[in-house]
């Protein structure tokens, strides 16, 4: 055996050494070339579920469609302002039912065909027919036949009832090109399957279908003929390569080695220091409109008791969570909507962390027969570390006042399903409310008007007839001056009832390569609009 032993080792060692040396040689001669190409922007923004802006409407879609599609009006700047985009102007009748938009002349789609009011009508009818996410704001107030094009540059809407958020929701509808979609319609599906993987817009960038794989990558190239022209940006990005990352560690490394120009805007706070210490990248902080809330199921005891709810509202360590866990990268927001939005009653005081008060309310609740000893469940979104940490913090404070809280891991799709009925909705759960449109309707309107019971946004199953009346009146009025006091009044009442625990308004953290210049931020789209950006070098 000894002979074999001696010869066995070296024989293989030589081969291995040779193979390793060859490998090292190949690798060494081909030092990795990073994304130094100044015309390609490598974006780490998450991709939407598919590319059809009439099927999906969420934060990733917003950041995609701002580049590939145009809308009649668009949110720009920070704080967000709604500005004319494809439309030059609009008028509204006094009763708030008739809206007329004037289109700019000479707008062209990516295929070169001119955009007319008929295309806008087609787009809105398609949204209503598909009846998916972006249709939510329109389904109840707009019939397909009531969108019309009296002339090639005029679009007229006749609403069923006066609905002020209609205008705020106009930027959520992308105008699509029927001449590209119609040939791809199958079984009357409005080209749903086709547009999910293709583009038919007029936006600043054009989708390259061959460069798309759902949720993995997407390529877009510049649309030189965009109606706004490019005179404001002499050196725009020519190609956007969406290369979303799945893991935080990879995301940060890719930013630091220059192969990613921006991360997604949800960078964890503990990465800020490391990135800011690098020569190549930095972390951009922006206040957005995205609130973080712990929901309480107001139909289940003890949450059907006001004192019990007040007890919970005083037991969350708001500032400890914001400062210690989030590193201070959030703003305490005691209101049921972003504190930087109109309609907030500034005189209303929120609840503070005060375990003594919490105990007092606990005693009152018990005296009124609320089952405060019942073991309670708080469902978190397991894949989101922050929601888990917030829940654990809450759990430890509640334990001090004798409340037994169990933290249960769950996922978004299960939670929204459970929230469809009061008895399946968890005792408590955690979520964020992002900006789908910049209007109080997006928060208080849909969270606390009882007609929305059954949707995840209204999952505290709160019901107060006065609040319902105020919110409905505010929704029907047209002018912001009339609406604001109604929302303020509604919010005062909601806060007094304390149906949920409102924690913070987000600050988004996004890693950016230092070569990225000219970025413009708006909370809608989270700074993803690429037409303003130039790459140095």
């Amino acid at each position, binding site marked *: 055996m000894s002979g074999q*032993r001696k010869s066995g080792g070296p024989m293989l060692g030589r081969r291995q050494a040779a193979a390793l040396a060859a490998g090292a040689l190949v690798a060494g001669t*081909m*030092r990795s070339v990073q994304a130094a190409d100044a015309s390609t922007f490598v974006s780490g923004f998450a991709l939407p579920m*598919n590319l059809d802006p009439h099927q999906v*409407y969420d934060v990733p879609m917003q950041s995609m469609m701002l580049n590939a599609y145009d809308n009649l009006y668009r949110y720009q700047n920070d704080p967000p302002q709604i500005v004319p985009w494809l439309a030059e102007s609009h008028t509204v009748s006094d009763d708030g039912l008739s809206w007329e938009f004037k289109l700019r002349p000479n707008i062209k789609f990516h295929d070169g065909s001119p955009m007319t009011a008929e295309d806008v009508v087609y787009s809105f009818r398609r949204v209503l027919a598909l009846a998916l996410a972006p249709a939510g704001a329109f389904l109840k107030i707009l019939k397909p036949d009531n969108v019309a094009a009296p002339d090639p540059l005029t679009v007229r809407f006749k609403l069923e009832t006066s609905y002020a958020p209609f205008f705020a929701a106009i930027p959520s509808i992308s105008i699509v090109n029927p001449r590209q979609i119609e040939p791809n319609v199958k079984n009357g599906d409005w080209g749903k399957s086709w547009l*999910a993987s293709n583009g038919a817009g007029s936006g600043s960038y054009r989708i390259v279908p061959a460069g798309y*794989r759902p949720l993995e990558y997407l390529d877009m190239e510049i649309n030189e003929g965009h109606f706004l022209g490019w005179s404001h940006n002499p050196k725009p990005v020519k190609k956007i390569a969406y290369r979303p990352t799945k*893991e935080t560690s990879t995301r940060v490394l890719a930013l630091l080695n220059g192969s990613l120009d921006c991360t997604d805007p949800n960078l964890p706070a503990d990465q800020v220091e490391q990135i800011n210490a690098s020569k190549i990248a930095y972390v951009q902080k922006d206040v957005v409109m995205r609130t973080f809330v712990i929901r309480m199921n107001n139909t289940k005891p003890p949450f059907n008791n006001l004192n019990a709810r007040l007890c919970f509202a005083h037991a969350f360590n708001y500032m400890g969570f914001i400062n210690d866990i989030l590193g201070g990268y959030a703003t305490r927001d005691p209101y049921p909507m972003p504190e930087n939005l109109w309609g907030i009653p500034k005189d209303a005081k929120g609840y503070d962390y005060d375990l003594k008060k919490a105990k007092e309310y606990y005693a009152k609740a018990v005296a009124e027969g609320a089952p405060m000893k019942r073991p309670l469940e708080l469902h978190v979104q397991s894949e989101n570390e922050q929601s888990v940490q917030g829940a654990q913090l809450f759990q430890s404070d509640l334990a001090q006042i004798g409340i037994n809280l169990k933290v249960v891991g769950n996922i978004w799709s*299960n939670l929204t399903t459970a929230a*469809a009925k009061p008895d399946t909705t968890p005792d408590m759960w955690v979520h964020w409310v992002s900006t789908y449109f910049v209007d109080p309707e997006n928060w208080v309107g849909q969270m606390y008007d009882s007609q929305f019971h059954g949707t995840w946004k209204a999952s505290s199953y709160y019901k107060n007839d006065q609040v319902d009346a105020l919110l409905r009146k505010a929704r029907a009025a047209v002018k912001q001056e009339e609406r604001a006091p109604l929302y303020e009044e509604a919010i005062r009442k909601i806060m007094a009832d304390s149906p949920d625990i409102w924690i913070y308004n987000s600050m988004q953290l996004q890693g950016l390569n230092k070569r990225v210049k000219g970025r413009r931020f708006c909370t809608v789209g989270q700074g993803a609009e690429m037409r303003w950006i130039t790459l140095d070098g």
Partner: protein
Amino acid sequence: MLRFVLRRCMLVLPSLFGLLVVTFLLIRVVPSDPAMAMAGDAATPEQIERLRQQYGLDRPIWEQFVSYVGKVATLDLGESAFSRRAVAVDIAQRLPATLTLTFCALAISVFVGVPLGVVAGLSHNTWPDYLLRVFSVMGIAVAAFWFAIMLQLFFSMELGWLPLRGELSATIQRPPRITGFVVADAAIAGRFDVVADALRHLVLPALTLSLGGLATIVRFTRAGVLDTLQQDFVFYERAMGYRRRRLVWIYVLRNSVTATVTQIGLLFGGLIAGGVVVEAIFDWPGIGSYTVQAILTGDRQVMLAVTLLIGVVYAGVNILTDLAHGLLDPRLMERG
């Protein structure tokens, strides 16, 4: 041999049907409502109800199952609730990436693991054996995500030799899709810069994925070699004056790798499952990340199709393993 393969294929069918039943039932246990997820964040209850009817989610489970099996039999895997694309198309786009990664990892495991196992066997209880033992225990114990990050830190960040993530550089133009395998497509298109780029992207994920299998194969081969070395024919051949190299690498090895080959077949399933983590860390656009996404969003058609697919691949590999056994030891093939 054809009969042998056919027989194995027939045996696979009931297993796959069983897999389908179990998966279908398990997915129903998950409370998530695909209609809700499909309708999106801003949907109203009416929108959700409409989708539920449209996709037949309101019908009894057996009815849904029968209709699903009927479709699968005609190779219609349905439509993903999210990408709105045929699941078969999505899978066809992603499977090549996963297969490339898995086979490369397997190749590394086998072509490095078997020789190292032989060395360990031959150097029984001396330092190369000890060293390899430490190495293989580490290989099994080390978490893939940790190893992946270490590789990224060293080869991508420190040395800058290899790309950090992805399948191709963002600035590179993709070759036209013919086979779906990027390396092959690039070679067909004559784009050797793309071939090189793709291969460099493959190194770190394949290395990470191969680690666990490599360690297992070293151990199994070592055991096999030790066993074989005790057999009479080895003494006989040595006495006959066979050259050592021939003796070890042909006769001993062939008789030692039966258990290893079984292990390779089993490893394949592990590699596809382990691929989920590796694909996530390296942003590898394969089946793993697709599956995770489907689970998180409750995309049932995708979950079912992927499970079925992995079942088919696994079954296929097992048939290949049996064939390999048959080739190593023709007596098995005769027994059928």
